[in-house]
């Protein structure tokens, strides 16, 4: 069973991500699956409905490469830097193709994917009252609470065709451990019909079993497992490498013009075969700069029974 799941990123994307899919790529600032985004661009997958609370650079690049037809999101910016320029070009000028948007707030976006994971039809929440977003997005509705008689906001569940998740480690069966910011990882995995997980390292089964509280996603939820170190760059993996803030700033300049953006895709996406080549191209100096000093947790005694 193990060997079936363990595959290359190119195999995983080819097998599970198809034209027209609803795709959720998890990770709030942390563990954003950039490597998978690049592979989707290389495989020229089209008409995707791209879902993430924060589209971030990963969707900006996929939109620029023409992979998206719709974006479902709650905060579209380059964090701490400025706008997402390719996203805006597509929304405002229809370049390289026009895209539809479906907009939420963070909590309502998370409620949608949680409802999907719980197999509930919708989820109630206390915000989104008195504001303009429900007028622009008819999927944000209200119902009367059958107990109090009060009106409450609801959002529909989201069950993506595929979700892609990056994590620190998993065993070869795909029991996935995450630490640091866990964001929307678990909800995305449990809500989706197919789940692709990439990890910094595949570890022995005993490593996972020594600390089961760290396992966010168990193996039977996972369809494909990819060992893909540095797959989150320029995002980060807690304890493995830092966020490449310099690149986030640089992306603002790269994405300013269509020419420079296309040159970037040519060189860093189409011009490399996989993440290994991308990492080699980043160079030792950059990699060393992003490596944090160690700071280990104190181990817990689970007891032997």
């Amino acid at each position, binding site marked *: 069973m193990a060997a079936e799941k363990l595959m290359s990123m190119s195999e995983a994307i080819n097998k599970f991500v198809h034209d027209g899919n609803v795709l959720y790529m998890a990770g*709030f*600032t*942390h563990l954003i699956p950039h490597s998978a985004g690049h592979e989707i661009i290389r495989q020229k997958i089209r008409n995707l409905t791209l879902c993430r*609370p*924060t589209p971030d650079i990963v969707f900006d690049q996929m939109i620029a490469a023409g992979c998206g037809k719709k974006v479902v*999101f*709650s*905060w*579209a*910016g380059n*964090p*701490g830097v400025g*706008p997402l320029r390719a996203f*805006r070009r597509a*929304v*405002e000028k229809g370049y390289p193709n026009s895209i539809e948007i479906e*907009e*939420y*707030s*963070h*909590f309502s976006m*998370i*409620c949608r994917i*949680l409802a999907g994971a719980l197999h509930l039809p919708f989820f109630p*929440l*206390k*915000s*989104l*009252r*008195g*504001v*303009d*977003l429900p*007028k*622009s997005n008819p999927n944000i509705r209200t119902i009367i609470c059958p107990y109090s008689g*009060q009106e409450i906001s609801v959002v529909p569940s989201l069950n993506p065709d595929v979700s892609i998740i990056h994590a620190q480690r998993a065993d070869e069966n795909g029991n996935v451990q995450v*630490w*640091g*910011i*866990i*964001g*929307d*990882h*678990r*909800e995305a995995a449990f809500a989706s019909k197919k789940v692709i997980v990439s990890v910094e390292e595949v570890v022995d089964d005993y490593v996972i079993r020594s600390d089961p509280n760290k396992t966010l996603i168990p193996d039977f939820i996972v369809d494909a497992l990819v060992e893909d170190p540095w797959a989150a760059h320029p995002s*980060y993996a*807690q304890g493995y490498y*830092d*966020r490449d*803030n310099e690149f*986030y700033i640089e992306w603002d300049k790269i994405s300013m013009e269509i020419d420079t953006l296309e040159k970037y895709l040519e060189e860093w996406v189409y011009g490399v075969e996989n993440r290994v080549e991308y990492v080699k191209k980043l160079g030792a100096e950059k990699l060393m700069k992003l490596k*944090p000093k160690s*700071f280990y947790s104190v181990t817990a005694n689970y007891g032997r029974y």
Partner: protein
Amino acid sequence: MEYTRTELMTITAARELRDKEVVFVGIGLPNLAANLAKRTSAPNLIMIYEAGVVGANPSRLPLSIGDPCLVSGARSVCSMFEVFGLYLQAGRIDVGFLEGAQIDRYGNINSTVIGNYQTPKVRLPGSGGACEIASLAKRILMITTHEKRKFPERVDFVTSPGFLRGRKERACLKLEGGGPEAVITDLGVMKFDEETGEMILTSVHQGVKVEEIQQNTGWDLKISKDLKTTEEPSEEDLLILRQLDPQRIYLGK
């Protein structure tokens, strides 16, 4: 000691935080203000970041809302659903700190579009967690530079609710949070009328004229009968603030 208006704005915002409060912190000036308060007047302040970090103790200036430095040494890390659900929606956040492209007469915030939603003049990032923070935190502080385009009488799009068209309208919605408490700018401090919920100028920074504030506000801003001059920052405040942002990424030159 000399100081800039941005430094004064940040220090004034920090003074609005009380010891032992639980504050939902954003990146940028709110983060600087919260960290300054924690190191001065509010040592037991609990900082919660929307990425799901509770009781953060950052060793460096976080450049993104989910910076790894927020996690190392924090008290707790939880999922996004938990931070918005168990903490914010459940009423466990005392103060929310927000910025916005536009803030209006009743403290409504726009961070979605300038112009029309379908054909915007400028497309902004959108709500993120701001709508939830403004709806559910017990009180809201806003921090922004004071420019006319940022203070229209009515925002183009209500991303996050202030008092809507007045305290009564917000009360009808039975939102958990108490709504806006103060707007701190580089020119002064505004609070909100107890009856109507309209913004009122309550404090003017040193060297700033009331006319300058009025000229930079998009409506006839009410002025408190008890108008004060903002307390000047102490040397300690300034030194700590500058240590927090040594490259002056958020404080500017």
